[in-house]
């Protein structure tokens, strides 16, 4: 079976490499894409949408439908992870570990036992032993705000530089995941609860599709942001630039929430109890 798979993989690979010989050379000015498609966008993007970064304009405006369904795919990935992995009604854990914050002593509590519920002296730690590391926790605490600031910058500056909703959303989600890894899953879940996270996930897609539907209601095509000019109080060309920005925010929210959602489900086996 392994041999058959290897033969199939090598044959398919050889076929693909053989087929690349028909491609135009890298950066070939005479290729069909460079003679018809690219010049259209290079020449017209700035005057039609007033967005200097052509990639952003093509992604969110000219091919807006494509990006909308990409966002929907991300959303579906989060929902599928939730449906497949989430386990409700968790059984009582056999034993749980607590750390006495002041002395650093670890306490093992067997089933049925309890620590004083109103006491702030104990914090729960994962059963799989994790050493208390002040350096990692402090460094992550310092770093995370800057990572999040960079994520917001990437979303907001997508018009002028590489980046946009997807990348910025992933960076924002990664900062929360870093928080969950450096502290523990329960601490991160107290900041962004499961329900909020799922709602944010759907809100992002809704912002994108809602912007498109608003354009439809205002009398132009779906996702034709020029229709937003009357609401935003700007000329139609600037409205397209602003419309791209609104949509990018939606993508950013959806992607951020989905990344956190998938991580929470995968790392805790769907129990939302103990993470990585």
């Amino acid at each position: 079976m392994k041999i058959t798979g290897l033969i199939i993989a090598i044959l398919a690979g050889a076929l693909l490499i053989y087929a690349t010989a028909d491609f135009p050379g890298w950066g070939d000015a005479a290729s069909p894409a460079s003679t018809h498609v690219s010049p259209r966008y290079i020449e017209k993007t700035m005057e039609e949408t007033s967005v200097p970064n052509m990639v952003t304009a093509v992604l969110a405006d000219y091919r807006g439908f494509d990006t909308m369904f990409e966002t929907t795919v991300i959303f579906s990935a989060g929902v599928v992870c939730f449906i497949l992995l989430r386990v409700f009604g968790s059984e009582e854990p056999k034993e749980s570990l607590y750390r006495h914050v002041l002395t650093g002593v670890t306490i093992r509590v067997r089933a049925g036992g309890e620590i004083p519920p109103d006491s702030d002296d104990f914090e729960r730690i994962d059963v799989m032993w994790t050493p208390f590391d002040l350096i990692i926790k402090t460094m992550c605490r310092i770093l995370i705000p800057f990572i999040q600031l960079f994520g917001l910058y990437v979303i907001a500056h997508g018009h002028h530089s590489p980046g946009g909703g997807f990348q910025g959303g992933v960076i924002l989600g990664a900062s929360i995941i870093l928080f969950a890894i450096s502290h523990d899953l329960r601490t991160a879940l107290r900041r962004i609860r499961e329900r909020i996270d799922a709602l944010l996930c759907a809100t992002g897609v809704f912002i994108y599709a809602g912007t498109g539907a608003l354009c439809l209601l205002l009398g132009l095509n779906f996702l034709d942001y020029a229709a937003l000019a009357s609401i935003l109080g700007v000329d139609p060309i600037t409205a397209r630039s602003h419309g791209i920005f609104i949509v990018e925010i939606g993508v950013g929210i959806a992607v951020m929430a989905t990344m956190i959602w998938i991580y929470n489900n995968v790392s805790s086996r769907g129990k939302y109890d103990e993470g990585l």
Partner: protein
Amino acid sequence: MIWQIDLAILTLVVIAGIGTIMVKDLLGAAILFGAYSFMMCLLWSVMGAVDVAFTEASVGAGVSTVFFAAAVFRTTRRTKD
């Protein structure tokens, strides 16, 4: 495009790609796959596709490696085959 850089990165891409499927340790495979993604990111930026390189760096080399590591941590670290 400088062909020496291109060749070096492409060699590393192939090595990381083959390593990912050959390694028995799944955590090692996840890390090698992250390395593969990062080399692809370098390749995209060498070819001038900076937006794609950015996505590859954040999604491929960043978050998906964390997802793989979490999945390995919650399942098993050795492959059966």
